[in-house]
């Protein structure tokens, strides 16, 4: 077999299919509106995608383990609100806003990890409960109103401005996080263990791997990612607001799955997740430029995701 053939086999089918769908969407967008393929518009799409991309990074780690994190919506909101609250707090330096928010997300992630790894509660229900707690905390914190505090200049810089080569800083941030994740997953024993746990926890335990610590670490990273995405979103819109994370659960999980990561764990590549994120963002963008009522957009959005999954996300047939 030639080197090219081996290379081709290494790139998984899902990634190819996702890239194919992206090309189709780009062509469809260009046919509808000439400006769709302008560099400026595409960079703007990438900027929006990077917020989703940061969330999807954490989701992917957790999904690789065979778990799921449903605490995303309110951890994102918590990240946004805590950063602006720290920025508005008199006694704190503005530079602490981002670390403080990420630390809060990290804390919730640790709680999630302990519940899943040590208490052995199914991740779906445990993260649901921590989501409710994060929501409760934020309602107490804001008394149910939109917070008055504003984002710091640093947050604005990270989320909106274009400092290097005219590429949005948010994209650089996502690229940095992505590169770190690829190294973590592909080049460290930790990463190998993540995939191994997704395939068989028991095998990892029997080969003396510390299953629990890896699970807690992954949930902690996921919580930090969600909170950091909240920071970026608050920087993007200068404010944090109630339920700002709600529109990100379905897209984040859909992006990870459309990128070829098995929802049962153990299989998937970060490149696929990147493709999935771009795919979902482009789909949303096309549905919003085609002037269609929200109802139609949602129906098409759901239908397209189903169709794409039917094309390349089907499970194996049970035969024995």
């Amino acid at each position, binding site marked *: 077999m030639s080197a090219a053939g081996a290379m081709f086999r290494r790139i998984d089918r899902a990634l190819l299919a996702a890239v194919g769908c992206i090309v189709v969407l780009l062509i469809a967008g260009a046919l509808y509106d000439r400006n769709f393929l302008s560099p400026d518009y595409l960079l703007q799409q990438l900027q929006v995608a990077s917020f989703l991309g940061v969330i999807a990074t954490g989701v992917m780690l957790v999904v690789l383990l065979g778990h799921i994190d449903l605490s995303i919506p309110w951890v994102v909101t918590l990240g946004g609100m805590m950063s602006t609250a720290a920025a508005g707090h008199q006694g704190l330096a503005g530079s602490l806003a981002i670390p403080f928010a990420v630390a809060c997300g990290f804390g919730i992630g640790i709680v999630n990890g302990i519940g899943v790894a040590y208490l052995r509660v199914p991740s779906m229900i445990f993260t649901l409960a921590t989501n409710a707690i994060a929501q409760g905390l934020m309602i107490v914190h804001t008394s149910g109103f939109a917070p008055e505090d504003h984002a710091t200049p640093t947050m604005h810089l990270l989320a909106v401005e274009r400092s290097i080569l005219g590429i949005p800083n948010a994209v650089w941030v996502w690229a940095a996080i992505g590169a770190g994740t690829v190294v973590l997953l592909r080049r460290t024993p930790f990463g190998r263990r993540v995939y191994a746990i997704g395939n068989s926890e028991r095998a990892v335990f029997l080969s003396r791997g510390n299953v629990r610590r890896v699970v807690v670490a992954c949930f902690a990273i996921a919580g930090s990612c969600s909170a950091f995405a909240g920071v970026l979103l608050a920087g993007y819109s200068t404010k944090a607001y109630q339920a700002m994370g709600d529109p990100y659960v379905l897209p984040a999980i859909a992006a990870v799955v459309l990128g070829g990561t098995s929802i049962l764990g153990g299989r998937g590549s970060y490149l696929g997740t990147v493709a999935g994120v771009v795919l979902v963002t482009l789909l949303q963008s096309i549905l919003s430029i085609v002037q269609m*009522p929200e*109802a139609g957009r949602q129906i098409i959005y759901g239908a397209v995701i189903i169709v794409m999954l039917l094309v390349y996300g089907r499970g194996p047939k049970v035969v024995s």
Partner: protein
Amino acid sequence: MSDARLRAQDFRYWLASHRGPLLAVALFVAMFALFVTKHPAGASANVINTAANKGALLAFVAMAQTLPVLTGGLDLSVGSVFVMTNCLASTLMAGTPAHVALGVAIVLASGLVCGVLNGLVVMFGRLQPIIATLATGAMYGGVALWLRPAPGGDVNEDFADFMTGSLHDLVPFSIVVLVGAVVVIWLPYRRSVLGRAAYAVGSSEQAAYMSGVPVARAKFLAYVLAGLFAAIAGLLLTCLTYSGEANALLGGSYTLNSIAAVVVGGTSLYGGTGGAIGTIFGAFVLRTIGDLLFVFDIDPLSQPLFLGVVLLIAVSLGSFRLLKVKKRVDLYR
């Protein structure tokens, strides 16, 4: 062995196999007793009726969730079906009794259609239920918005009041509907071939397949019936509010609470054990927690936090079984 000893043994077995649901029943009875003794109006028909209506809404959505969960799946679209059928009912349940009856039939049928779509996608599309129903849920949310872009509606108030009132000021009619659904739908389903097949599939899909259990049909029927139960909840909501609203947040919160109710009611999220009756009490437990926070004068702003903490504690209670695990390797699947 004597008859009496056999019967005692049967009883102990029954007790052990129904521990989860029985715990939910006990919890509900204790909490509800506390609620009515603490409530300023006491155990009046009105207090009980309000509690029953609120609980029945969640109970139906959670029953819808129970069926796919029993097969080892999940239906994240139950909340959306609930909201969608609410919107549909708010356009169809006005006018003469004949119109209302036709409307009810169409609403229930629409729930079945949603269930059929979910079942087709999960079963014959071989997609993972979590992601597939998340996507179909978005679609149903879109349909709800299309049916009712702005909140409102016109509902035959006599019918609505009857559905949400009490029989002889004693038995809330929503409870009658709930019991009716259990007797007419759940119990026959539980005893049918496909119902037992659903439990088998939830315990071990491969073993079920190898034993000739109709795996595909069992899963399919579970999602279809889930759509029906969610539609009943949608009807009840319409009767309570006289209107419809395409409220995605409401749908989302009902979906999440339905999963919580299923777990509190003693059904395993891994499938194969539990049932709808436990779920009903699980749903009532969750609703009674909210009521208790109200009668104990907890600050409304901190109520969601309390609910979250109670939910976290409730789902963590199952971890006591870990103490009984002798070999650590058994902790890992």
